[in-house]
């Protein structure tokens, strides 16, 4: 329990009704508690008050003394003995509001019929409630060039803008990206960018959402729909582990837009541009629409479900099978894979990590992460936040926003174990440390945010697991990993963190599943599964759900050749191209389910698209059908049944898997033009879920190679000039960015245009490469 000081409560009278609210509450929000809606534009509960639009004027009296003129209710906190009269009871306030509305409209164009905002527009709505039916303005309206692109995905129509400054305040206060500002002055004041620097903030879409008029619109949604034609479904974002609540808007079976949903304890009211604007993959032409079987001619052909299921059962029968689960499986689907592996296939050879990974990490996850309870609220209260191989702005953007909020609010101390200060780290004013050993100042109120890339540094997770002071959180990039861990989709744990190696834990699971025994041998990891295929003594079949082999290693796809591959996929991919059987599965909008965000918090979502277009089901249902066909049923006919069954397990309270104790790797000593490679994925990159989103892609950060000034000098390049980074497998050529980074290192984006480290170098971290002027 926290020991927060009791909040002082204040009672005020608004329109004759008493309301009691915490001290500091603004009048406008105290009125909301009474159900009194004071019209407003610039007011936003998560932005500092501006008092700019003046739409929310009310009469205020304190201790019997009335303010001589109406006050902006969005700027004044309640006080004891305050009496407020809104438009409902004060003719002065009512006239003031009507007057402001009239002024707001004199320069507003009458293009509501063609405006995206029409139908969900606060200006339109409040003009109806507070405006006059006929304008008295007969003069000349202010005109601007109609929409201008302030980025490839955001358009600005200055004629529609009411200068509420929500967008500019968001960009500065919430995102730390003051790339848009109010420019010019007076009646010519307008939102704008510096001509050469577009509004390429990772969070720009929020400004479109909070714009109270149609001034900011998204290029991808513009002119596509009327709000009243859309069906909205609360949903959860599948892109990363931040856990954003979303709203998915669908028209006639097609997702047209996604908006940030409200969840005060997680994403507040924000999301990132990837979560907002990367969803074309859902309705891509590449979607697999029916089961496919590879014929004797080597070509895939459509097949009926019974035929395909029979082929799967036959193909897997008598084989030693591994299971690879993608990082964006829902909790329920991951549970389906976990149970399917143990019950139907009789193996622990299952892994959800389709990325660089280690045994040390598996031990860390099973021992330390399963029951972790660190939350966003702990960041809010932290005395020190340490980022370990974790770039929140790129890898979990809402975590970034939350840390930034505290940095702005109270100068929260932030340290980052990172090769150099990224843009995100600079905004957080983070102290850059080259290794975890250097972290100091940890108390029980400190929060250590451990990125998934920590697995790539041998010994690091062992060191973190040994930390006993601070709160720890493990933040994977993908939305499904924390849930898959809980579901037991890993070789060393069963559901709820039950160690495979623990007989009593196994009996627990055996009993729940109604089976006689469970495999006892620890499972293989993703890379071990791949390596053992076709070796004679290892595995000879694999079930793959939502995995891109290029995320694992450049060899992964080759390792999957000449073995029996069952692919559960939403779209055609490198795996479906070599699979023996392809079973279509539902995408997030087409099913219900849940993710666990990095906190372990359940993020449940509903099916957003229904009807005849939906031809398939969630993975778990399909796995259950295969299991039935193989006569080793897992009895999970629905997502709900999987959720129920997993929930019944709870978290294992017995002994856990032992913490890892891996040694650090010996230091590599690059010589000459050699450097040690380091990398991470930028938020907007070549990730498969972003395919087809050209507007989004154009706002991404361009690939650069980050090297030290000393290295730049020694190879004779200046900032912006091209360098070639290579090893025996391949090379990339990108512009150089000189920064404060160890002379031994070179940083590249992991999966961006012109810089894909895993497929190019066979590694993403720690390998030696050569850097020369291109």
């Amino acid at each position, binding site marked *: 329990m926290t020991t927060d000081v009791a909040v002082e409560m204040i009672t005020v009278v608004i329109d004759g009704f008493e309301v009691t609210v915490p001290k500091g509450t603004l009048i406008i929000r105290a009125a909301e508690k009474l159900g009194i809606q004071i019209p407003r534009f610039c007011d936003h509960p998560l932005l500092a*008050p*501006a*008092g*700019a*639009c*003046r*739409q929310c*004027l009310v009469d205020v009296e304190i201790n019997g003394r009335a303010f*001589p*003129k*109406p006050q902006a209710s969005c*700027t004044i906190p309640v006080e004891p003995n305050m009496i407020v009269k809104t438009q409902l009871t004060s003719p002065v306030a009512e*006239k*003031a509001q*009507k*007057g*402001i509305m*009239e*002024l*707001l409209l*004199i*320069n507003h164009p009458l293009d509501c019929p063609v405006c995206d905002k029409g139908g969900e527009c606060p200006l339109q709505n409040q003009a109806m409630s507070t405006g006059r039916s006929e304008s*008295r*303005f007969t*003069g*000349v309206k*202010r005109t601007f060039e109609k929409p201008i692109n302030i980025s490839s995905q955001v358009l600005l129509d200055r004629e529609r803008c*009411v*200068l509420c400054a929500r967008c500019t305040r968001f960009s500065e206060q919430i995102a730390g990206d003051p790339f848009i500002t*109010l420019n*010019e*002055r*007076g*009646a*010519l*004041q307008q939102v704008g960018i510096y001509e050469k620097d577009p509004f390429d903030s990772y969070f720009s879409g929020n400004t479109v959402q909070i714009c109270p008029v149609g001034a900011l619109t998204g290029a991808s949604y513009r002119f596509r729909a009327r709000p009243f034609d859309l069906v909205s479904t609360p949903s959860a974002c599948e892109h990363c582990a931040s856990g954003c609540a979303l709203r998915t808007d669908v028209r006639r079976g097609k997702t047209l837009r996604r908006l940030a949903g409200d969840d005060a304890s997680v994403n507040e009211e924000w999301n990132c541009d990837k979560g907002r604007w990367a969803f074309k993959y859902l309705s891509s032409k590449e979607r697999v629409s029916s089961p496919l079987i590879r014929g004797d001619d080597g070509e895939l052909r459509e097949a009926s479900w019974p035929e395909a299921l029979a082929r799967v059962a036959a193909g897997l029968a008598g084989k030693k099978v591994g299971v690879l689960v993608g990082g964006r499986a829902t909790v329920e689907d991951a549970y389906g894979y976990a149970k399917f592996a143990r019950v139907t296939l009789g193996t622990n050879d299952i892994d959800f990590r389709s990325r660089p990974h280690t045994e040390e990490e598996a031990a860390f996850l099973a021992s330390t992460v399963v029951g972790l309870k660190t939350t966003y609220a702990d960041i809010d209260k932290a005395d020190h936040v340490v980022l370990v191989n974790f770039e929140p702005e790129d890898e979990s953007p809402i975590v970034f926003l939350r840390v930034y909020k505290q940095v702005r609010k109270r100068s929260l101390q932030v340290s980052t174990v990172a090769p150099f200060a990224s843009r995100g780290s600079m905004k957080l004013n983070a102290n850059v440390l080259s290794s975890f050993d250097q972290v100091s100042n940890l108390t029980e109120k400190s929060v250590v945010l451990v990125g998934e890339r920590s697995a790539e540094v041998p010994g690091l997770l062992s060191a973190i697991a040994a930390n006993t002071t601070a709160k720890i959180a493990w933040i994977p990039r993908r939305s499904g990993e924390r849930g898959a861990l809980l579901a037991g989709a890993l070789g060393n744990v069963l559901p709820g963190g039950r160690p495979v190696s623990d007989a009593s834990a196994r009996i627990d699971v055996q009993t729940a599943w109604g089976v006689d025994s469970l495999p006892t041998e620890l499972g293989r990891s993703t890379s071990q599964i791949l390596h053992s295929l076709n070796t004679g003594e290892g595995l000879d079949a694999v079930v793959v759900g939502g995995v891109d082999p290029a995320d694992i290693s450049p060899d992964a796809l080759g390792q999957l050749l000449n073995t029996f591959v069952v692919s559960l996929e939403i779209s055609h991919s490198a795996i479906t191209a070599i699979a023996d059987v392809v079973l279509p599965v539902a995408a997030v909008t087409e099913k219900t389910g849940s993710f666990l965000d990095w906190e372990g918090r359940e993020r449940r979502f509903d099916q957003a698209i229904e009807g005849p277009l939906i031809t398939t089901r969630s993975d778990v249902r399909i796995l259950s059908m295969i299991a039935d066909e193989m006569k080793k049923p897992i009895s999970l006919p629905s997502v709900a049944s999987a959720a129920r069954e997993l929930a019944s397990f709870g978290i294992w309270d017995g002994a856990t898997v032992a913490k890892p104790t891996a040694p650090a790797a010996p230091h590599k000593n690059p010589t000459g033009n050699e450097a040690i490679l380091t990398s991470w994925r930028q938020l907007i990159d070549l990730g498969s879920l972003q395919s087809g989103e050209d507007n989004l892609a154009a706002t991404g950060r361009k690939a650069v190679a980050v090297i030290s000034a000393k290295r730049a000098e020694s190879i004779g390049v200046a900032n912006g000039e091209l360098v070639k980074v290579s090893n025996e497998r391949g090379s990339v050529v990108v512009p150089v960015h000189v920064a404060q980074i160890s002379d031994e290192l070179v940083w590249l984006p992991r999966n961006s245009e012109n810089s894909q480290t895993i497929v190019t170098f066979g590694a993403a971290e720690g390998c030696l490469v050569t850097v020369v002027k291109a």
Partner: protein
Amino acid sequence: MSKLSPVLSAHWDEADSFTLEAYRRNGGYQASKKALDMDPDAVIQLVKDSGLRGRGGAGFPTGMKWGFIPQNDGKDHYLVVNADESEPGTCKDMPLLMANPHSLIEGIIIGSYAIRANYAFIYLRGEVVHVFRRVQQAIEDAYAAGLLGKNINGKGFDLELVLHAGAGAYICGEETALLDSLEGFRGQPRLRPPFPAIAGLYARPTVVNNVESIASVPAIIANGTEWFQAMGTEKSKGFTLYSLSGHVKNPGQFEAPLGITLREILEMAGGMREGHELKFWTPGGSSTPMFTQEHLDVPLDYEGVGAAGSMLGTKALQIFDETTCVVRAVLRWTEFYKHESCGKCTPCREGTWWLVQALKELEAGRGTSDDLDKLLDIVDNIAGRSFCALADGAASPIVSSMKYFRGEYQRHLDLGSCPFDPIESTLFAGVKA
């Protein structure tokens, strides 16, 4: 005995009055020496006791403003001088700074010492290069003479003084806009509270004072509160600069005790220009409601002008004779407010846009009597509804001119055009080719 009382302007007729040498020759920098020997609180008390009120327009007691600064709070304090003089008709601080910059610097030393500020700024409007030169030179000379910098007069008091040029924005005369501007932002007013005394420049306790207010302090310290209180009226103590401009024989600066009347000043100045009579005038700049002939005997102090329905403001007495079209004058002022509106709030930004268009129509004689009522109703939706006082200032000339000259507006509408010949009101009327 003269009705005038030159103090700040007492030596402006000396060719080198702006130099440190001249200032010292005339007794300068004795007051700061004296003040630095006093307890800072005693300096504040003395200024409070004197009754000095802000000369920038609002008339807030200067000593009280200083007293609001929390002491011993461990924070940096700042004194910021508002030298952004831009209110139409106002032209007192610029000649003061050009002819007597050291009076301001000495006042800054005293004020900073009193409020425990070690850093002070002069925010000077940017459109007056020669004034900038004079003030900058005066600051450099004061540093060289050990009057600024470390350990002033060997009293252990440190003070850095920076001259900062504005760049053309009337709104920066509003103190919180000035502070934002000085911090390197757009000069838009801030929400209050917090007030500058608590969170001003860089969110630290800050006093913002007008040039004339601060420049008046050395004389008060040197001569004492009784001397100061002997001038002026009951609640408006001391001397001040009245700036007479427009259709008068002899425009200029008149330093006099508060409470003098326009009739008295006009008499001294030789009256209206030959053959013309007073039509309307502003007591303290365009933002103060206009007066007419009937107000010639209003005492020009804070209370007197207020009681007559206007404000003392900056004591900018702009005089217009009967050749002047009041609608044209008001339109031009309204265009000024539109040009200078910062854009932050709706009523000012959109309202001034509308008012200019409405007044242009009226000046051209287009419209009906209903449009005059509409004009007043638009003003009613602007005044008292905006973020700062700029829009209230915009409303003043319209409301007051409609009060005294509605008939003249109506005459435009009846005629379908402006009844005045603008050439008649120029200084070179009759001499044009």
